[in-house]
């Protein structure tokens, strides 16, 4: 065989890696080379043999095991468990999340159970406890019958066949109550029972007297069955004075830190939602019940409550979890939507939000599951250029992005934000820059919040809410980039000013405790006051969430256009003279009650809705390998192309 310019040309020709000129030369040379032709066929056979090897595959639950191991590594990176940034699913992931009807997804993908976190025993206990609390706290001359109705309800209430997956009142929960008179209507008071029935029977969304309501939440869309009047004339705690009688139960899982800092109370305060009943954890309600029991000596009341407490204690002991805090509120549907939207938008403190009743009504399905499946784009991934195939070298891990550094404004340390992404108008789209700026804003908020006492966070949050970094999508790239940069500098400056203000305020607190002033001492004024609902709607639209966007748009505020960053002026208030011997006390501001709720004189009277919020502090559960799962089909590479000579 005569010499080739390069003997590797045979393999390169086989792989189609020769240039046009090289291929032409090789083909001319190959004509009179039988040995080379034979070698070429042999190498082609070798190539085909390898390509025809059976494909090796992994087991279906491999991806879940990977995520499990990865998240464990993240959580234990410091050598000790920390707040679950990536929550586990102790019962195995529900994968792609629940479908609107609550059934398992047809083609689930592996992942953390962002959706419903099913703990039947605990949730059923909570539901039972919530119902008991409502019945107990309602003035009644005969608590026994009320309790009897509840117990009867839980025993008799039947979920329809197509009821979505939710917590069930299992046998243990139901047996905790002593059944009483059987004469009470079976579904008189069961929240979920009533709502499921109403939903399962295809009740059309109606509001009060028959008007069709388009609210995506559908809080006022579920028609409850007409409940017969209580036999003993006792007030039904779920019976509203208004035209509507609905109730909503929301189960929300928050980080332990948020639970300790009364995060949800602050959410209610910001949305001006009155708390009808105290926020004490369930165990405190049980203690209150015990006091009443001791006072009245009513033996019949003792057993179910004691058993409820035992169930809760058992659940707590079994899982090591703090009992949840139960909030019973009364608010307009719009206020509840705002609360739910705020919970859903908080990606730091809120882990899961589950709204019950589950949606049989299509209008409810969009807001059924507020799980963390809604991804917020990260700020540090540059969009690769089209067709780029350059290799990214595998570098050693970068040092931790967040580090604590002394605040330039004073002694309060402020964690450094990760470096901002590059603002290159030719590469990074406006949307990514907007989201990056919002991401930085959110991080700044969280970092400041972690350093500020609870009593001051409410006002700080209100002030930071005014710092919007949104820029209109239609703005030219240059203006958008300039706007983002300007907002970022404004945020930094405003943060410094507000930290200084808060330190002054904190130092001037009276010794007897702190009462939130009627007007915030720290006010931020700007040329165009932002509209929170519109901002929420905008943010929702950017994430492709029409329901929340519609909720915000329903407020009726116009979509503002900002051509320039706002000019902020922080008005400082003279520090109050400290009382002699004053000491700072971490006292949470009092919750707004019904008496303190601002009168909504400017708006037409909206129907009031009762809602129960069960706030559970998350916990890093024991490691459990999840069950089955069917991953998406794997992608196999196309066989290597071998051009024929």
């Amino acid at each position, binding site marked *: 065989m005569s010499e080739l310019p390069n003997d590797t040309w045979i393999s390169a020709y086989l792989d189609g890696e020769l240039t046009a000129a090289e291929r032409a030369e090789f083909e001319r040379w190959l004509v009179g080379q039988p040995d080379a032709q034979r070698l070429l066929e*042999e190498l082609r056979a*070798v190539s085909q043999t390898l390509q025809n090897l059976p494909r090796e595959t992994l087991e279906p639950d491999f991806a879940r095991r990977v995520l499990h191991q990865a998240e464990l590594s993240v959580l234990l990176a410091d050598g000790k468990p920390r707040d679950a940034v990536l929550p586990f699913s102790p019962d195995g992931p529900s*994968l792609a999340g629940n479908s609107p009807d609550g059934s398992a997804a047809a083609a689930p993908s592996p992942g953390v159970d962002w959706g419903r976190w099913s703990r039947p025993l605990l949730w059923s206990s909570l539901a039972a406890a919530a119902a008991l609390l409502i019945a107990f706290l309602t003035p009644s001359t005969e608590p026994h019958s009320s309790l009897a109705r509840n117990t009867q309800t839980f025993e008799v209430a039947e979920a329809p066949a197509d009821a979505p997956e939710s917590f069930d009142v299992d046998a243990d929960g139901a047996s905790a109550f002593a059944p009483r008179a059987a004469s009470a209507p079976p579904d008189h008071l069961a929240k979920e029972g009533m709502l499921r029935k109403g939903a399962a029977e295809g009740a059309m969304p109606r509001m009060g007297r028959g008007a069709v309501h388009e609210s995506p939440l559908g809080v006022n869309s579920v028609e409850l069955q007409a409940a017969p009047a209580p036999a003993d004339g006792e007030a039904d705690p779920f019976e509203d004075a208004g035209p509507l009688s609905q109730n909503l139960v929301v189960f929300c899982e928050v980080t332990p830190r948020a639970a300790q800092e009364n995060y949800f109370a602050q959410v209610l305060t910001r949305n001006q939602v009155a708390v009808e009943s105290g926020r004490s954890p369930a165990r405190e309600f049980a203690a209150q019940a015990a006091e009443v029991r001791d006072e009245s000596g009513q033996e019949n009341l003792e057993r179910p409550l004691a058993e409820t407490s035992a169930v809760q204690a058992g659940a707590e002991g079994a899982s090591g979890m703090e009992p949840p805090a139960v909030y019973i509120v009364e608010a307009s549907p719009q206020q509840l939507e705002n609360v739910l939207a705020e919970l859903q938008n908080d990606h730091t403190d809120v882990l899961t939000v589950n709204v019950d009743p589950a949606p049989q009504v299509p209008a409810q399905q969009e807001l059924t599951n507020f799980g963390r499946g809604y991804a917020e784009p990260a700020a540090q991934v540059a969009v690769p250029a089209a067709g780029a195939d350059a290799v990214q070298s595998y570098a050693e891990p970068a040092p931790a992005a967040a580090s604590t550094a002394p605040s330039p404004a004073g002694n309060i340390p402020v964690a450094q934000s990760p470096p901002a992404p590059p603002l290159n108008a030719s590469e990074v789209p406006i949307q990514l820059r907007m989201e990056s700026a919002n991401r930085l804003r959110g991080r700044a908020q969280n970092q400041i919040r972690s350093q500020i006492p609870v009593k001051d966070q409410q006002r700080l949050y209100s002030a930071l809410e005014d710092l919007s970094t949104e820029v209109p999508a239609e703005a030219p790239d240059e203006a958008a980039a300039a706007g983002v940069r300007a907002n970022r500098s404004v945020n930094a400056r405003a943060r410094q000013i507000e930290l200084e203000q808060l330190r002054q305020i904190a130092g001037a607190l009276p010794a007897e405790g702190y009462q939130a002033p009627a007007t915030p001492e720290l006010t931020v004024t700007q040329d165009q006051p932002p509209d929170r609902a519109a901002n929420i709607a905008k943010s929702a639209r950017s994430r492709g969430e029409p329901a929340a966007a519609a909720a915000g748009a329903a407020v009726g505020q116009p979509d503002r256009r900002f051509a320039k960053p706002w000019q902020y002026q922080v008005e400082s208030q003279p520090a109050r003279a400290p009382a002699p011997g004053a000491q700072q006390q971490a006292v949470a501001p009092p919750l707004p009650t019904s008496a303190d709720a601002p009168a909504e004189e400017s708006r037409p009277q909206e129907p009031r809705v009762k809602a129960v919020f069960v706030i559970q502090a998350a916990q890093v559960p024991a490691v459990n390998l999840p069950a089955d799962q069917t991953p998406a089909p*794997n992608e196999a590479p196309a*066989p290597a192309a071998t051009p024929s000579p």
Partner: protein
Amino acid sequence: MSDEPQLIRASLAGDSASFGRLVCRYQDRLYHTVVHVVGSREDARDLVQDAFVQAFLRLESFQGASAFYTWLYRIALNLSLSWKRKQRPIQSVDQAREVSGSEPIDQGARPEQNLDQDERAGQVRRALAQLSDEHRQVLVLREMEGASYETIAAMLELPIGTVRSRLHRARLELRDQLREVLQEKG
């Protein structure tokens, strides 16, 4: 594949489900390659899992200049090399069989497949295991991954000329190992 940047961004934002989709997308492809690089299914499974975990932990370092799978394979390759350095000196297939009494790659029971085909596949794998690491790597990337010379050069951090020559030598060597198999097929 077009949603890969979105999945990565979502993963960085804390959505593990998005990273799970990436795992599902590439797990078998990576596993198929790593199996033939390391010569053991069990070890390949562990290495692939470790590679995905490392990718998850260091996802922020992925700049997006290359395809995600390219970056992922680089991680898996580094782990494979580290793993091999910790292994005892490479034995021949016959030596390994004598020591352990079993094949390095367990064929497993696949009743639905032709036994001749299984045996032939086993012969091919054994022959592939006889190649040097450098030759096996380029050959697997080319034939199993369908990677171009440029991609192979980038993955292995080699000049393209080196990739071309190693690939040619690897094919010649494997041809010699598979003469009987190739003659049966022919």
